[in-house]
């Protein structure tokens, strides 16, 4: 297996431009997500889903402002969320068809030509990332631009990001860079700066896509202590494999049948 690749999203330099959302959609040819004004700061795409693989959250924070009586927003947090590509990926654990698999870059990818839309993966994800697309039925999520990586290219979102808030590279390097960055931010007085998802000791065994946050994870809509939903089911895969056996066998026969018939003619 090649080196483990990942995303480091440094939200302290995110300008909320949403280039990541658009670049992702252009590359991956994802449909639009509807045209709804959400009246939620500048966020009109809501959350990660089958047709939004990068999502920028906007959080307006009010505090007493200088020399005035009125309160006004003095901090506007922006953060581009994405699939975490967990070390222990529950979506993959529960996938009965093998549509979800772990790539040589240690990322987690759904194969659209295999996914049968069973949806087991959807509730399994501790972050609520993966989802089934309406009309299509299959499950979709960020692939970390697996196809681009196979050609030695960085994912579309990381390439487009104007301020390098989204960084792509070998996970170990990113972790080192992130440590330095968080240390510096803290030294500069951002005491709440923290990394999220970088620790191999966390509930998902560490994320392949981790973040530098300037506040509690909940503020950004991230679970504070995510746990792989299949942690207590080490035998899950064998179980799922057995389930798949019967289904696959039936399907295989269905395919083989006509083929043999054709051969007789």
């Amino acid at each position, binding site marked *: *297996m090649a080196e483990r690749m990942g995303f480091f999203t440094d939200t302290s330099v995110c300008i909320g*431009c*949403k*280039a990541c*959302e*658009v*670049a992702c959609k*252009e*590359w991956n040819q994802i449909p639009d997500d509807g045209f709804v004004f959400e009246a939620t700061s500048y966020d009109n795409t809501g959350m990660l889903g089958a047709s939004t693989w990068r999502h920028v959250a906007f959080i307006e924070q009010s505090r007493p402002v200088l020399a005035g009586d009125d309160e006004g927003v003095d901090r506007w947090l922006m953060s581009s969320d994405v699939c975490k590509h967990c070390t222990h990926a529950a979506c*993959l*654990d529960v996938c009965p*068809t*093998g*549509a*979800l*698999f*772990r*790539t*040589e870059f240690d990322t987690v*990818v759904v*194969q*659209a*030509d*295999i996914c049968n839309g069973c949806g087991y993966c959807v509730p399994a994800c501790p972050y609520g990332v993966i989802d089934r697309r309406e009309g299509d039925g299959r499950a979709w999520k960020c692939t970390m*631009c*697996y*196809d*681009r990586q*196979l*050609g030695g*290219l960085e994912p*579309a979102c990381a*390439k*487009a*990001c*104007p301020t*390098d808030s989204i960084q792509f590279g070998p996970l170990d390097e990113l972790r080192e860079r992130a440590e330095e960055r968080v240390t510096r931010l803290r030294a500069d007085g951002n005491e709440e700066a923290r990394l999220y998802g970088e620790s191999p000791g966390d509930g998902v065994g560490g994320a392949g896509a981790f973040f530098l946050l300037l506040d509690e994870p909940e503020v950004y809509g991230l679970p504070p202590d995510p746990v792989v939903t299949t942690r207590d089911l080490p035998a899950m*895969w064998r179980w799922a*494999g057995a389930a*798949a*056996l019967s*289904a*696959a066998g039936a399907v*295989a026969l269905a*395919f*083989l049948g006509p083929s043999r018939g054709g051969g007789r003619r």
Partner: protein
Amino acid sequence: MPGRGWLARWPVIRQLTGEDGRSDAARSARTDALRPRTEEAGTVARSICPYCAVGCGQLVYVKDGEVTQIEGDPDSPISRGRLCPKGSASKQLVTHPGRQTQVLYRRPYGTGWERLDLDTAMEMIADRVARTRRETWEETHEGRVVRRTLGIASLGGATLDDEENYLMKKLYTALGAIQVENQARI
């Protein structure tokens, strides 16, 4: 791996036969064949983003007469390969289904569009320019020579190329049309 061919490569079969179901074993043939589609491009044009005036570099990938991808040009010392949401949507700008590709004509007092051949439209426009120019020609204004027409005006230019602006200004000036303006005024 049992046998060869599509059946043998089917992930479920491969998982059942003992390969690691969560990595290589699960790969479909389509997955195995994955490459970035930019590798298949016949040509790559070095271009510039058409939105704001920062002037970010773009690479335009074309395959079989279709734009298959537009992304940042990492060589640009201005943008270093990066693009904003608008720049990132450039492929959609040039390929979206709402783009008009036919000449349309609305006759005076008409209630709908009609089709018109491009050459015919050009001849009709030239006729109107020549006629309006002649009808509204002003040789003098309050006793001074002006040699112009106030009957023809033009708006636009900031989204166009320098060469296009040049031909516009040159032609309009020769025609005596002086009410020539663009977005720089607003």
